[in-house]
């Protein structure tokens, strides 16, 4: 076997309320493609973040080319030869390919930038990688796949020795994937150390030499790819932990009325023929990996993004939801995964946020807001949801994540929503508050509300859902009753390679 170029030992990292990395070991050899796998939140990104100077580590050592190193910023890591090719490409679309690759270190001819030299250097890079891209082309005119190849060229031009690919194929077509793999094989030949993060099982088998699996911030193990099966890896990913109080059977009576029905929804690439039913008093879990199209489905359903086709029925009646306003009128409330961007108005008070969706009911003469009534209903909601806030005049930004979430729940309850879409309800919320949010959701369905819960956490899905829909790459790949759902079945459906 080749020389080890990078060793990470006993890496430990905590964020407030989360032990993100628990003494993780990881190594990369020259000329190998090393897969890093795990569920969302398993700690892969944090581990790579620690390596490249995005996060500082609490404990542990990083040895690179025989020396112990520490990088305070991605720039330092880059200079040392460790680069990430990101899932989202960081390119300036208006500039040319060569200008992008050499941004920040342009050659000069006197006071002017030497574009000719940059184009020539870029051409050499592409020749080395056997890629056919014109360095003078404007970046935004390239396909996503070509743009990614420019990222790789940029990495190589930095004299990288270790290249980290973070879900590189997420947006690529099959031909582009094949091209990418050829480049990766070529890089392997040239003795680069490559870390390959992906959820696609078939790719892992195809391109990688070893695979390291992480779970809940710990390293589960490292396998030689050619000697293991897909099932081995799935098994390691989900583990054998017994989660507390998993639901064993649905509490929803078989004859409960269907309150929401979606038929053949299409909305862009990420929502392809999605159909499902939601019953009264049910928690319908939407499982899948990040970017599987669950949020896109919810947003299309809620009218936040345009829908191409498909029908939606609320309580048996066909409805035409074209904007969030229409959805709210039909009694649907949406709690966004990105609370700070889409859920709350941070610099406003609890009371003002609480009535945001129903303000027209709190207006007295001359369009004046009835502040007394507004405070009263907010106070009642704070009490009912046990929101921890000194008063309803507190600014929402001063509340903890869990309490902010409760304010959003309160907003929808005040507007009398019957169907609530919880998108990653406990993201960024600490353990104690999670419990409260779960209890709250259970109470809501007991009171006759219906909930769609999108969650990337397996534990959450198995604990809360009565029924589970699994999505993968914009398509619904499976639906289970809670009684028959297992982690393996769900993970398998979530990572299923789509037939091409």
């Amino acid at each position, binding site marked *: 076997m080749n020389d080890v170029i990078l060793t990470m030992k006993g890496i430990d990292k905590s964020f407030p309320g989360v032990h993100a990395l628990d003494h993780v070991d990881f190594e990369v050899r020259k000329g190998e493609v090393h897969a890093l796998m795990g569920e969302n939140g398993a700690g892969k990104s944090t581990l790579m973040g620690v390596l490249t100077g995005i996060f500082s580590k609490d404990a542990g050592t990083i040895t690179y080319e025989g020396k112990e190193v520490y990088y305070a910023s991605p720039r330092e890591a880059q200079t040392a030869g460790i680069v990430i090719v990101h899932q989202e490409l960081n390119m300036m679309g208006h500039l040319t390919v060569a200008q992008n690759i050499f941004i920040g270190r342009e050659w000069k001819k006197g006071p002017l930038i030497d574009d000719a030299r940059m184009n020539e250097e870029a051409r050499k890079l592409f020749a080395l990688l056997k890629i056919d891209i014109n360095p003078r082309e404007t970046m935004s005119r390239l396909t996503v796949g070509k743009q990614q190849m420019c990222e790789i060229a940029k990495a190589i031009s930095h004299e990288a020795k270790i290249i980290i690919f973070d879900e590189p194929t997420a947006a690529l077509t099959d031909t582009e994937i094949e091209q990418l793999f050829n480049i990766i094989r070529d890089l392997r030949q040239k003795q680069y150390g490559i870390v390959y993060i992906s959820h696609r099982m078939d790719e892992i088998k195809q391109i990688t030499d070893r695979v390291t699996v992480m779970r809940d911030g710990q390293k589960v193990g490292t396998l030689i790819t050619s000697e293991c099966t897909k099932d081995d890896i799935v098994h390691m990913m989900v583990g054998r932990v017994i989660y507390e109080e998993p639901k064993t059977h649905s509490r929803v009576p078989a004859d409960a009325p269907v309150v929401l029905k979606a038929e053949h929804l299409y909305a862009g690439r990420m929502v392809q023929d999605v159909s499902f039913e939601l019953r009264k008093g049910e928690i319908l879990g939407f499982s899948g990996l990040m970017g599987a199209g669950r949020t896109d489905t919810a947003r299309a359903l*809620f009218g936040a993004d345009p829908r191409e086709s498909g029908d939606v029925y609320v309580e048996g009646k066909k409805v035409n939801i074209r904007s969030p306003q229409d959805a709210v009128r039909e009694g649907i409330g949406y709690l966004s995964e990105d609370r700070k961007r*889409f*859920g709350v*108005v941070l*610099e*406003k008070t609890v009371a*003002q946020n609480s009535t945001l969706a129903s303000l027209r009911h709190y207006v007295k003469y001359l369009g*004046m*807001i009835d502040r007394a009534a507004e405070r009263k209903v907010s106070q009642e909601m704070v009490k009912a949801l046990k929101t921890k806030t000194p008063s309803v005049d507190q600014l929402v930004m001063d509340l903890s994540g869990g309490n902010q979430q409760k304010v959003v729940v309160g907003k929808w309850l005040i*507007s009398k929503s019957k169907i609530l879409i919880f998108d990653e309800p406990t993201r960024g919320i600490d353990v104690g508050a999670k419990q409260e949010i779960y209890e709250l959701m259970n109470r809501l369905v007991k009171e006759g509300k219906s909930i769609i819960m999108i969650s990337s956490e397996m534990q959450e899905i198995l604990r809360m859902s009565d029924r589970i829909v699994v999505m993968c790459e914009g398509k619904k790949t499976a639906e289970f009753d809670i009684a028959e759902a297992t982690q393996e079945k769900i993970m398998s459906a979530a990572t299923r390679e789509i037939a091409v």
Partner: protein
Amino acid sequence: MDRLRNHPLIKKLGVQRLVITGVLVILFVFFTLMSPSFRKYTTIITMTSYMYYIMLMAIGVTFPLITGGVDLSIGTGLVCYSIVGSYLMRQMGLPIWVAMLVTVGMGVFFGFFNGIIIAKLNLPPFITTLCTMMIVRGLGSILTQSMTGVWPMAGQEGSWFRDLLKYKINGTIYPVGLVIIIILVIIMSMVLNHTRVGRYIIAIGSNKEALKLSGVNVVRWHVMAYVFSGFFAGLAAIAYAGTFTSITPGTGAGFELDAIGGAIIGGTAMTGGSGSIVGTFLGVILISLLKTGLPYIGLQANWQQIITGSIIITAVTIDMIRRRK
């Protein structure tokens, strides 16, 4: 210091507005001490007259600013609406109240026009209102065949509208316009802080996406911000006609900058999400005080520009530092 800061009165008024009030008092005392001719009643009257139209524009433009936008069309708009009003009276013989209605109506129309383009078609407010600024400048001249605008003079029929600004009893002039302004400031403060439209306009500047996902018709309320701006530009057009004897077509560019400057000194953030009508009121008084006062101590108009610019930068810097804490 903290106890002082948390005093209910100070909390209600806001630190920035208290600072401006302090600066206003100091400046006023300074000018009074430095120049004997400044401390005359007529100076104050002159100052208030030149202030009205800027003040009205500033109250209106505070709303687009709070949404994170801007309205550059109010300056040339004001001149356009007011010469069209004059044309209706002088060339078509219509009564003054019709002219007033049309003047304000045109303001509302162009406010609505801006609002629809910005809120519905998502064009940048800067570009949109810059173009409207050019359009109304040309339009005013075309509609009136480039005639200078003149509204009824003292003694003529319909001159009562000038009394709305300055009322003369036994040779003494009373600045009644100031009373109207204060009433409007109170009303618009209420609108901004205590009504649905005000709440939504602030929320648009603060987090438009969250508001949209709360099921609120964001477009409608976003348009309203520009309608307010246009409406007040229409009122400002009447005030302008009441202050000056003649109105030259094609002028007015730059008026909006004084109004926007006043709003910003008053603590309205150009990034949107916060602002105050009382702050705008104080900010415009500050600018007007400088405009009137500086010549009295021997500093001419160019100096006033430099000082106003410096004050705006200082005010915004202080605000940024305070926010960062």
